């Protein structure tokens, strides 16, 4: 695998840019020799976090950070999305999974939680960051 790599970019927070962000992240991870299944999982996590930030953020300019660390016995990939806005808007973890399996909405964070090994929510009244860490096979 390639050396430790990290990208940090700010994207215009609109649904229409989600595809461009995914393309950029996919290219970056492919260049780092991350396998296709992990890239697909990473893109899904990214999309859910990005849409969440666009939907609930105040400024529509989420900051997306994708990091890949191939060193050590357990290579990891992390994705974090930061938006302006109160962290209290993020539902508590117990509310991430919809009670109704056929619920039409409210499923994004449960998808992130199912894929990632670690999900953290940090922030204050002005800023929210959700970070997901994925194992890399």
């Amino acid at each position, binding site marked *: 695998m390639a050396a430790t790599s990290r990208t940090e970019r700010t994207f215009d927070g609109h649904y229409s840019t989600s595809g461009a962000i995914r*393309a950029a992240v996919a290219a970056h991870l492919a260049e780092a020799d991350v396998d296709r299944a992990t890239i697909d999982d990473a893109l899904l996590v990214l999309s859910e976090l990005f849409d969440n930030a666009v939907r609930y953020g105040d400024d529509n300019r989420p900051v997306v950070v994708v990091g890949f660390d191939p060193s050590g016995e357990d290579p990891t990939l992390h994705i974090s999305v930061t938006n302006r806005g109160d962290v209290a808007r993020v539902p508590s973890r117990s509310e991430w999974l919809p009670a109704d399996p056929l619920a039409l909405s409210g499923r994004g964070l*449960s998808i992130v939680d199912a894929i990632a090994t670690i999900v953290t929510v940090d922030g204050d009244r002005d800023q929210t960051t959700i970070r997901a860490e994925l194992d890399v096979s």
Partner: protein
Amino acid sequence: MTASASRLDIEVQSAGVLTLRGDIDAHTAGQLEAALLDVHDEDEVHLHMAEVAFLDSSGLRVVLAAHRRLAEDGRELIVDRPSDVVTRLLEITGLQDHLRIE
């Protein structure tokens, strides 16, 4: 990188049979929603998803809404030949047990 939006192509093969190619996300989900609302009368509505390169919860919401709407009329939504990313999302969400997949 070119900052291009995601793209979804929907081909109506015949009445009630839609072939989807591309990404189904928050940007393109409305296209799929409109196409599904345009399907009338058929007892079975087939979504061919072998060439879906990306699907997230925004796209899933549209699929589930169609599934529910059709079921209320005694009709059925069928997901045909889901791609790996579609299968992965259906497994993660447990929806493979609630949707008809062929």
